[in-house]
């Protein structure tokens, strides 16, 4: 078992939401060890490029395997790793820019396939690592380092998008609620299909939304975040759509499709009747 690299010295800014997400991920993976005896080496963390993606280097203690690939390409890489070795636990960690801007094209295909991986998205509504430019989830009119006069694009409703793409399991969380988040990540990993845990993970440096999200309950000022009521039927896609259209940031499991075949099983099923041949047999069929 490889331990954390003591020499690695990249740091998130103080208060960055990603710290909480890291703790939650560590806890979820640790719980797999206790619950199912799955060793940590069975987990592969596929990271996007961004402050968020640096998480793959910052996990404490015993280390999972990791890939810190290219900006926007965590899903295709995860697809490759998972389908080459379906027994692995593959987790994507990426930012809103990585996942929803340059990497946008990769979400729908995985949803259509029901690729059996979990993506943990850290949404801070900015590009943190490149110093605070607007991202797809920044709101219309938002002033950022790249939109000094306001962003001319509407903000993307990521949760709604996931539902339309047909993502099987969609959860929404906040980085500061570590225990809840750890539970959601754990459940998402357990779920046999494509799951996304979309986390509000504020960027204290360029877009500090902690206050906005939490509000000031004592002073009666409501925050943007609100808990999805227990009564919500997570199997009900209409109800789920209702939740994500209500505005604000719903917290909890938004949707969990009745488990359908994950990709590895689909392929097995499709190919069940195909003839399996050795390379020699294939070669022989070209004999003149």
């Amino acid at each position, binding site marked *: 078992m*490889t331990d954390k690299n003591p020499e690695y010295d990249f740091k998130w800014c103080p208060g960055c939401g990603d710290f909480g997400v890291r703790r939650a991920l560590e806890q979820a993976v640790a719980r797999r060890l206790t619950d199912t005896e799955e*060793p940590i080496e069975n987990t592969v963390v596929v990271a996007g*490029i961004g402050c968020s993606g640096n998480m*793959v280097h910052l996990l404490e203690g015993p280390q999972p395997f*990791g890939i810190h690939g290219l900006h926007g390409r965590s899903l295709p890489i995860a697809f490759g790793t998972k389908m080459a070795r379906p027994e692995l636990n593959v987790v994507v960690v990426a930012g809103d820019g990585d996942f929803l801007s340059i990497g946008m094209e990769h979400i729908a295909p995985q949803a259509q396939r029901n690729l059996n991986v979990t993506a943990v998205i850290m949404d801070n509504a900015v590009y943190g690592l490149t110093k605070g430019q607007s991202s797809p989830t920044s709101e219309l009119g938002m002033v950022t380092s790249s939109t000094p006069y306001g962003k001319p694009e509407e903000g993307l409703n990521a949760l709604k998008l996931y539902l339309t793409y047909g993502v099987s399991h969609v959860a929404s969380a906040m980085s500061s609620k570590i225990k809840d988040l750890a539970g959601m990540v754990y459940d998402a990993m357990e779920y046999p299909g494509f799951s996304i845990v979309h986390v509000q993970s504020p960027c204290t440096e360029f877009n500090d939304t902690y206050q906005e999200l939490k509000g000031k309950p004592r002073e009666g000022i409501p925050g943007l975040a609100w808990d999805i009521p227990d009564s919500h039927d997570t199997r009900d896609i209409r109800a789920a759509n209702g939740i994500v259209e209500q505005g604000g940031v719903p917290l909890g499991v938004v949707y969990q499709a009745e488990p359908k075949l994950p990709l590895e099983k689909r392929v097995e099923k499709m190919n069940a009747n195909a003839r399996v041949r050795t390379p020699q047999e294939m070669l022989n069929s070209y004999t003149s």
Partner: protein
Amino acid sequence: MKKTDFVIRFAGEGGQGFQTAAQGFAAANVQAGYHAQTFATFPSQITGGPTWFQVRVSTTPVLSRGDKLDVLVAFNEYAYETHKDDVSDEGVVVYDSKMLELPDDGRSLGVPFEQLGKSTGNQRAANMVVMGCLAGLMSMPQSILEDFVSKRYANVQRYGEKTIPQNIHGLTLGREEAVKSGFALGELAPPEKPDYEQLFLNGNEAISLGAAHAGLNFYAGYPISPATTILMWMQQHYVGEDRFVYQVSSEIEAINAIIGAGYSGKKSMTATAGPGFSLMSEGLGLAWMAEIPIVVCDVQRGGPATGLPTKTEQSDLYQAMHPAHGDVSLPVIAAGSVEECFYAAIAAFNWAERYQGPVILLSEHAFEGRNQNIRKPDLSKIPVENRNIYVSNNGSDSYHRYESRELGPFPVPGGPGSYVANASEHDGMGDTTHLPERHVQMTERRFGKLKLLEDGDYESDNTEAGIAVMPWGGSKGPAREAWNEIQGNGDTELSWYYTMFLNPLPSRLLEELRTKDLVIVPELNYQGQFSSILRTQGVNAESLTQYTGLPFKVGELRQRILNRIQVDAKEGALV
């Protein structure tokens, strides 16, 4: 004297189905013990458009498609006009006399193929009449085609009882027309039937089979001509345990997917062509940087950008060697024939596993459309290399994949030695670092590994001559034929070199080349890409280029080589 080879071209409109006739004609001859090569060219559309298909049959291995035609089978007037000048002086033009009227040029033979075909009772026997007619013109024993037909349609349940007799009837009708016409092209010498088994297949099939033998586990691809048929072959044939094949949503997904699979310990591959290859640029850089074994096959087509999707060219070499920003030099293996497609694919996997990184396998449109006989490989004799997997750290946490300047074992998920495969510059565990020493060390590690690949084999011949011819890829065949002719005529002294291992070059080969006064590189691109690369390595190389979308013609190439040498002789260099 009997003839040693025949060249037949079928030309018409795409979708007229003559591809089947041509293909069958070639297959029949191979079955009889001849060597054969086919060639196809067509526009980038599904139905129609000017299309031609060529077959060359020979008593010795076929090196090129053949410059001059013994027979042109013309399916429309445009085809006749376009191709008639390629017919040799003794050649014949054959056409369907009910479909077409051609000027009476004294060498054209009209036969009502369609009508005669239908008269056999089989609606689709016209092709048989064509074949019979060709056989007649070439005085080919009737048995060759009959044997082929009997074998091809042997499955009575599938084809019905009448198919074989009807088809044979068609062959006979065609032959009779030829005999009746009085045209005769001489007789093909009997085949020297080889004492080994033969396969008859095209380049993409050979690549697919090579990958299968090498132990491919994971294939992801996106359709693109002329690589699509590899994807389709895989989808069709490569099912079973530890074989995952998938059509993904783009080439960017493909390259990243095979990187994920390669990382996880599996042998993985994608095949693409120009535009898709360019889209893989960033991913190839990642595989180089993180040292992930993958094989990327680029079946080259013509031109930059969308270019000429259905024409052939050898113009992706620069991109293959240096596909991405930063210091990157990817291993490149380029197949030079259908047979080499098979071996090059295996070599590509072996290299990828050995040096733990991405390998580019270059093929060409010409091979996709080319069916050729090759000696059936004895799989038990073709070595397959497997990755050196890191298996144990005895409970310690001390193995760090990138620690050393030299290559070590490769940890895979689920096992010990966890690390991060990192696109950023990294330390021993793969964590990001910006330390100058580390960037120096890792850069040298990445380039140093290429030394493991310098033992590729190569052909050399008549090595004393100071001027050499050294083609690459698909220009090998025409260049060899031209070289053979030059040597055979005693015109001049030329040495011959050839390798499919373009980067790194076999080290001994490179040494030899550096001693030459001039290395002439026939290649199908404008810039003379391979000769440029040789020049950067201290070889006095110069290209003979062609960029028409078509392969070299042997005669033209021979003349250009001779011209070049004369210039050199005039300038006082050694010949």
